[in-house]
């Protein structure tokens, strides 16, 4: 076990070095920060004598109308109650998350396809330590990104006399834990498939499924019974990082620190379960494509 961890650490450090000497991570981070910048500046420009007025900024007008139509006015009211940072955080984090997850999935699939993983398993590492290294690299870069986003938004808040808000801080912690589960699903997708393209397709399939189910639960409805889709989404929810993320947000909103910690634990457990499933799949399928 310690050898596997050592191997993972060594491979992860090499992967980290590769990530910081290639442009991808910087570009993803910059796209996130620019999106955050645009949203914060837009929010500050859409304030009038009565408060935040969506109609004063074309992008916010579009966002508010779209979100209200899909999820209802209450959703939008809560999203912007503390300021722009909750929404800006999600928008800014998305390109970073997608870049890290998709690049790892692609790289893992590619290396498995060309036999690099197989070659490595003849040496000191096994397939599990190899994917754990990817996971470690992604978690560390996510941590770095979260710190950068926090620093950037704190500066933006100070410049415009805005506040980050308690839900922003809660979300910052939650998205880090949720991102770990997403990376774990990326690894599972890589292990279950034989090529880079199919692993990306499967991974995106996972994300879209979780996103659709989560959006479905937020979508305004007019009927009580949601029958089959309700049952299906109930089952999928137990596997979805977004479900636990939402539970954590709801617990924090109610002021329940116990519920919030439970949701973090649930995300950790989900990550562990998915990684273990990847380990089992790797053992069954082997490292050959």
């Amino acid at each position: 076990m310690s050898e596997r961890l050592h191997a993972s650490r060594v491979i992860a450090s090499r992967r980290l070095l590769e990530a910081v000497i290639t442009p991808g991570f910087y570009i993803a981070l910059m796209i996130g920060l620019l999106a955050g910048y645009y949203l914060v500046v837009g929010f500050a420009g859409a304030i009038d004598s009565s408060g935040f007025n969506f109609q004063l900024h074309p992008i916010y007008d579009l966002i508010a109308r779209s979100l209200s139509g899909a999820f209802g006015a209450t959703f939008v009211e809560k999203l912007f109650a503390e300021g722009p940072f909750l929404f800006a955080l999600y928008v800014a984090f998305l390109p970073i998350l997608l870049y890290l997850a998709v690049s790892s999935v692609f790289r893992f699939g590619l290396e498995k396809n060309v036999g690099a993983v197989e070659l490595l398993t003849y040496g000191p590492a096994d397939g599990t330590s190899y994917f754990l290294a990817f996971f470690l690299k992604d978690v560390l870069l996510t941590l770095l990104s979260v710190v950068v986003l926090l620093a950037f938004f704190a500066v933006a808040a100070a410049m415009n006399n805005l506040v980050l808000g308690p839900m922003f801080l809660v979300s910052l912690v939650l998205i880090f834990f949720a991102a770990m589960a997403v990376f774990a699903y990326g690894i599972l997708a890589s292990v279950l498939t034989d090529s880079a393209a199919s692993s990306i397709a499967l991974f995106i399939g996972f994300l879209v499924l979780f996103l659709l189910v989560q959006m479905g639960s937020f979508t305004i409805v007019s009927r009580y019974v949601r029958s089959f889709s309700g049952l299906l989404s109930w089952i999928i929810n137990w596997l979805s990082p977004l479900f636990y993320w939402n539970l954590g947000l709801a617990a924090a909103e109610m002021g329940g620190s116990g519920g919030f910690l439970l949701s973090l634990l649930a995300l950790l457990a989900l990550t562990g379960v998915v990684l273990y499933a990847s380990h089992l799949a790797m053992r069954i399928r082997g490292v050959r494509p």
Partner: protein
Amino acid sequence: MKRLYAIAFSLLAAAGLARAEDPVRREQFVYSVLAFNGKDYSGTFTIEEADSFYLMAGVDNFLTARKTLVYFWPITGDWKMDSESLNQVFEGKVELTGPGGRPLELQRERYTYYNVQGEYELNWKVDRGAAADAAWKRYEEIVNSYYQAMNRHYEAQAAYETRLNELSLRITRLREAKRDVTALVEELKAMQAPEPPQPPRDYIVPPSPVQEAFILKLPVGEYRIRFLVQDAAEPDRWRVMEGSEKRIVVFERRRTNGIGYEVIPADKWTRPVDSKTPSSVLYVDGTADLYLRPFFQDEFNDLAYEKMRQNDAKGNPDLLKWVRLQQVPQARIQVVRPGDGPQEVLEAPYYVEQVKGAALGYKIVPFDPQGAHKDRDPSLRAFQIPIQRQNGVIRLQVRDKTGAPLPGGGRQIRVVVQSRLRGLLFLLAVVPLAVMAVVLARRSRQVTG
């Protein structure tokens, strides 16, 4: 001939339009629901396609079963009831099956509901049976005595005006005749117009005329309901009315006694906004003072609350929403500005005046009952919070009449001024690009070196 065609075409088109605007009415069995929504009663009904309706737990709600015409009104996007054309209330009973599984039969009861004056706005009362008749009778007596007092007032007013005219005429004639009118003028000056009687203030909402309905006061849970009518052939047998089987979802408040604020900017008093989320921040641009009205609010499930108020409404099943109930009575607001000690602001009456000149608009000024606003009512009662652009952060806390802070009653007002350092923030956003350039340059140098 062409003109004839044109007229015929216009008539046909108009007829087509008229038909298009006239929605198809369908005869249906409906439950007409008068539900208590936390602050007052709102009416809704269930169309046949609706599988459920929603009620709040632990309060009296009124239900009637009737046959009526329903139609979809596309302009507002909701279902409407044409009870003027058909409104047949069914005689019968309802059968409720709750979480315990044992059916419970309910009969119709006579009832009235009303809201009496009190310290709080919410003093709803429901009377049933003889008590309902007594409440209605009492209300009628109050109204009748008021009308009698008004009649007496009209008579006194007429007598007063007659005497006034008489005296005026006599004084005029005597003056023309150059005679002494001192006594008559004194009498004229001493005359006082009779005071009109005060309208009854016993009720905020007077009792509704006594009606019959099934009164549902249920604990939280899901219930099945169906309406039973006596079989015409066999009066001992009860049969289930077709289309009457529905589900009742009885829900409760998630949190109660939260504090929200109605925020009225001085330059847009007709467009107030609400601050409901306890952690919300009031961002303003500092160009106008704010007038605040704190209110109590309760938190409900969005879908359940919306569907309770209107059964065909939409809502978000996974979100909770705060619902404004009533103003906080005798509240005071503690205001803390940077560098200042806490100040206490009290509620005061204000009057809205139209700005003269081409600029139009309104301004809110303190209500002056003796001077400029004599014989008028204040436009609003609120807490004035002066705002200046250099204020930065103003912290608020609602306190009750004893001065104790009310939980969830804290807010921040932040004056947002567009930062001149926006360029710097943009540069910060592109820092990763600069770091990337440095790293790649170093890497390139290392490799080529």
